[in-house]
């Protein structure tokens, strides 16, 4: 069975990459009527044009306060929109907040129609968070590799040893001091910078 393609979904997220990850997920789940807003300043006009049944906004977005105010005071946003379907569905609310997304749902929409959309959005937000974490790790690993290479170079030059020896020396020191190789390498680089009068 395909998604509930009648439902209009609005995704507000100024992180364009995440917004497209969410959109793609919703489309894969069969929801086709999706509007994505990535401007920093959401306007009543844009919301009216999207005429959404469900609105998602990421929790890193300060405009969440703006959005809530619009829902309350705007005549143009024709149908009352509230957060989540009901207060009792605590698990779903928790899952959404943990994933970093908040959902607003038009009044009167049935819970069983909303649930699959929420689940899709939540899982996509979580997937994006994992992606970001992976990227962060990869970046850190790359940076650490650079520092280790520099430290090895310093040791090779200063002590006249081969690269494999320099590496072994770093590893042995790290083990003895119960530190990570990257940390020892950083100390070497810092010491070298200080001693050679280079950048602090």
């Amino acid at each position, binding site marked *: 069975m395909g998604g509930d393609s009648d439902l209009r979904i609005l995704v507000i997220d100024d992180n364009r990459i995440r917004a497209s990850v969410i959109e793609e997920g919703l489309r894969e789940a069969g929801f086709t009527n999706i509007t994505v807003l990535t401007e920093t*300043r959401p306007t009543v006009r844009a919301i009216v044009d999207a005429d959404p049944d469900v609105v998602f906004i990421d929790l890193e977005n300060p*405009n969440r306060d703006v959005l*809530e105010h619009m829902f*309350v005071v705007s005549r143009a946003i024709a149908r009352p929109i509230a*957060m989540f379907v009901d207060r009792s569905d605590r698990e779903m609310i928790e899952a959404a*907040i943990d994933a970093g997304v*908040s959902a607003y749902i038009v009044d009167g929409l049935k819970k069983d129609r909303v649930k699959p959309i929420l689940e899709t959005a939540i899982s996509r937000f979580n997937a994006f968070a994992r992606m970001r974490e992976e990227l962060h790790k990869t970046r850190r690993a790359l940076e650490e590799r650079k520092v280790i290479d520099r430290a090895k170079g310093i040791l090779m030059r200063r002590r006249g040893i081969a690269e494999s020896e320099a590496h072994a020396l770093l590893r042995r020191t790290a083990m003895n001091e119960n530190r990570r190789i990257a940390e020892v390498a950083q100390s070497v680089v810092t010491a070298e910078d200080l001693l050679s009068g280079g950048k602090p």
Partner: protein
Amino acid sequence: MTASAPTVTIRAGFIPLLDAAILILAKTQGFAEEEGIDLVLVREHSWANIRDRVALGHFDVAHMLAPMPIAASLGLTPLGGAVITPMCMGLGGNAITVSNAVWHGMTLAGADNSGDPMLMATALRQVVEARKAAGLPRLTFAVVHPYSSHNYELRYWLAAVGIDPRHDIALTVVPPPYMSDALAGGHIDGYCVGEPWNSASVVAGVGHIATTTTAIWRSSPEKVLGMRLDWAERNPEAASALLRAMHRASVWADSPKNAEAIVDLLSSTTYLDVAPSTLMAGLTGRIALGAGQPQLVPEFRYFSRRAATFPWISHGLWFFSQMVRWGQAELTPQTLEIARKSVRPDIYRRALGPLGVALPNASAKVEGTLTMETPVATASGRLFLGPDGFFDGRVFDPDLIEDYVASFEIKGPGPLEG
């Protein structure tokens, strides 16, 4: 004080603003640790996030807009859950900024750099009337949240001179760091917000500070510590310990010799990410209202002095009176009781009494009767309260809310907009 391993973890949400200072300093200056608290600070991005994460129990306490615990206790929030105010996080710190174009119009109508709220409002009224006569669109003013001191103080200021904030202008919500850009871009014509977001517009040359909210309501409260009621009931010792730590932080923050350290800390990218000089203005009250030299704005901000952290029931009830005035809440014996009980000077007394802190004997006062710094009765020590008058001379008696609300000519919910 002997430092020992923290025995209790308290999770606190905050928005990076100058008025979150005493919560942040309780952590960074070690006051929380001295009280055996592992204070976990979580930076948030919107008041809605703060509200929801307190309701869901992610946070035990949070830096909140003063009306937020009242709104939560009244059941006006999506996820429910009673929240109390056991401590205020300071007095003052807000201002009202207008665009250069509006300011130009106001100066033609007699506005000057005195910051006098009556003179400024009257000048603004002439601008508003002239626009109306010329068939120009209404001016748009922004506040940070519907349940905010800024919203009520701005509306109070406007309505006092006959500018109806429901009809004569448009009101919108803009997050504090975006205010200056929204003003520069012509999306709004003025706003009410805490520092440094007024000075930010002055520094950028896109706005002029018309007046300050401590001139509108002298010694008025700003942010509060919001605490989940169920958490407070289960953790009375931890709650007291946190209040003691924040009290020490407030005294530390009020000491002029620490101003530079506070500015260094809070202007960093971790918190406000603004130029230190911009933040210093709001911290010391030496503020440039427009192009020109900074001037001393009297009584602009207190973290500790003048019982700045005491949670006055009359402060909470004034906000409640304005929620009723503008149709956000109903006035019934029940709602009044809920609003009253959401402010908890008893918890404050229990926490700080043993420290020998001078506490006022009363927990509520008639706001608008003190015209100068006044010594008040305490059980121990000397305590001076600041003047607490409203600029239009009205007096708020927390026992006469119904009469007070009825006395306003301009009141009631606004029509739906746009």
